[in-house]
């Protein structure tokens, strides 16, 4: 038996089988940032329903339902704060919001996150989770592939680390753009990661796909990832990596008090930058 409290404590990872269940961006950030404290980065509004798209449901109705279900504006949350006293900007995609699909809002979120990272000279950490592009925004969703790639270019030019954590599932146009362009590519265990869907591939090649196909460990074996890391170890790993890439001193291990006193925190920051 698995209790809610226990599950929340283990970041939605089953204590019995180590299965990594979905976690919302907000919950993830609460666990990621020091003392659970983070500031949201503003994401510019987008044109709602840019194509007037209607399938069996109207796109605005689907949006309203998703917003009601998740309490979020769209499928990505961007925030800044400290992890192990290391300042970062982070973005996390929300699979529970229309399959995490990438439309103009997600594009805006990534561009805003990258711009904020560049302005504040902070690394950018992105947690991906999406079925792909949002069909209801047609070509404009597809155009977020080059658009988010421009955001990655901004980070590259500023010599700032861009670290991607691929979570279950990350597929389609999302994998084929910003989610595969990280300086360091990390995946959570057993996440589905790929371009084409397994069903489409099986129909095309008319053969059964091997066990574990398109899963994190399979991609690691094929040289497509740097690391597969358990969710409970991610925070420490991100601290270690970003601090090295930013030329900062090793993180102080152990429990730190929550950053309550703003002034004290600022002092630490300036010491770190001058170090």
């Amino acid at each position, binding site marked *: 038996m698995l209790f809610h409290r226990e599950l929340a404590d283990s970041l939605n990872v089953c204590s019995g089988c180590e299965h990594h269940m979905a976690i919302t961006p907000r919950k993830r950030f609460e666990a990621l940032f020091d003392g659970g404290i983070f500031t949201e980065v503003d994401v510019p509004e987008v044109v709602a329903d840019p194509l007037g798209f209607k399938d069996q449901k109207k796109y605005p109705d689907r949006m309203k339902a998703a917003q009601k279900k998740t309490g979020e504006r769209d499928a990505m949350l961007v925030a800044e704060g400290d992890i192990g006293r290391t300042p970062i900007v982070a973005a996390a995609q929300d699979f529970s919001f229309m399959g995490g699909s990438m439309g103009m809002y997600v594009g805006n979120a990534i561009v805003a996150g990258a711009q904020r990272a560049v302005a504040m000279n902070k690394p950018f950490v992105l947690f991906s989770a999406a079925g792909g592009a949002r069909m209801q925004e*047609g070509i404009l969703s597809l155009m977020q592939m080059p658009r988010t790639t421009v955001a990655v270019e901004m980070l590259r030019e500023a010599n700032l680390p861009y670290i991607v954590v691929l979570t279950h599932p990350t597929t389609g146009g999302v994998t084929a753009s910003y989610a595969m362009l990280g300086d360091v590519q990390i995946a959570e265990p057993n996440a589905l990661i790929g371009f084409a869907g397994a069903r489409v591939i099986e129909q095309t090649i008319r053969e059964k796909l091997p066990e574990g196909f398109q899963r994190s460990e399979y991609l690691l074996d094929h040289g497509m990832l740097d690391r597969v890391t358990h969710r409970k170890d991610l925070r420490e790993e991100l601290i270690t990596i970003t601090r090295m890439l930013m030329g900062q001193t090793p993180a102080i291990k152990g429990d730190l008090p929550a950053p309550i006193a703003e002034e004290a925190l600022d002092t630490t920051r300036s010491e770190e930058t001058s170090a």
Partner: protein
Amino acid sequence: MNHYLEFEKPLAEIEGKAEELRALARSNEEMDVEEEAAALDKKAADLLVDLYKDLTPWRKCQVARHPDRPHCKDYIEALFTEYTPLAGDRNFADDHAVMGGLARLGDVPVMVIGHEKGNDTKSRISRNFGMARPEGYRKAIRLMEMADKFGLPIITLVDTPGAYPGRGAEERGQSEAIARSTEKCLQVKVPLISVIIGEGGSGGAVAFATGNRILMLEHSVYSVISPEGCASILWKDAEKMREAAEALRLTAQDLRKLGVADGIISEPVGGAQRDRHAVIEAVGDALRAAVSELKDLDKSDLVKDRRQKYLDLGSKGLAA
């Protein structure tokens, strides 16, 4: 014409009748059918204009996929001189779904890269129906880097149903290859001009079509997903492709309104497949104009111009 599209059936009947009449007259010298046949010709010509005047998005998809449309290879052979194909990704293989190499457009040396679908069963199979694998995108990246190094404008001709969905393609990093190819398009300090000559199929097209100028043929399409794919996901019925094609706004005309396409190249009446020579010339004119328009831009302005084009695609919509 020997390949009629489904919506061209009435046209096929009239043209067939005219042909029959003339065949009859050839075998029987006494018969004079010219007047009658000419009337049918006129009727057919009027019908053709009528059919193509206001093509529905789904019909546009059919025209864009027409097997007799000129393909990448036809454009390269007709428009460029000294075409020197360059092969391979230096890593795994040479992908025949992607062709590319050095060539001259007029006097200007350029790098030309495109998807090739093939034009008969044998070539379609060897070209994998224009569906590239990672090595195809990696070959393109290599050629773009070379063009960048030697200051050659890059011309890409886009015509693909999409990137190939296969086991090996996934294992060799299809997503990464597409992402890197798009990234390379954004990085090069030379003009990059793309023409969607037929089908712009999703990420497989973006990987080549992230440029300073995106031109589309009048009846070409460019979409996040095929209408059939979209229908089967959102309508749970692949037969709803007409509705999906409508909803997706994938025509050159809609893309021009949305700011994705920078220009539309007119096709002959009845589509590119009815006058290959004319459409190839029109593409040549458009390419020469675009190259000369961009040739004096600074290296950094070219990169900036390209980036801005895509950064702007976050705030526009159609006034539906």
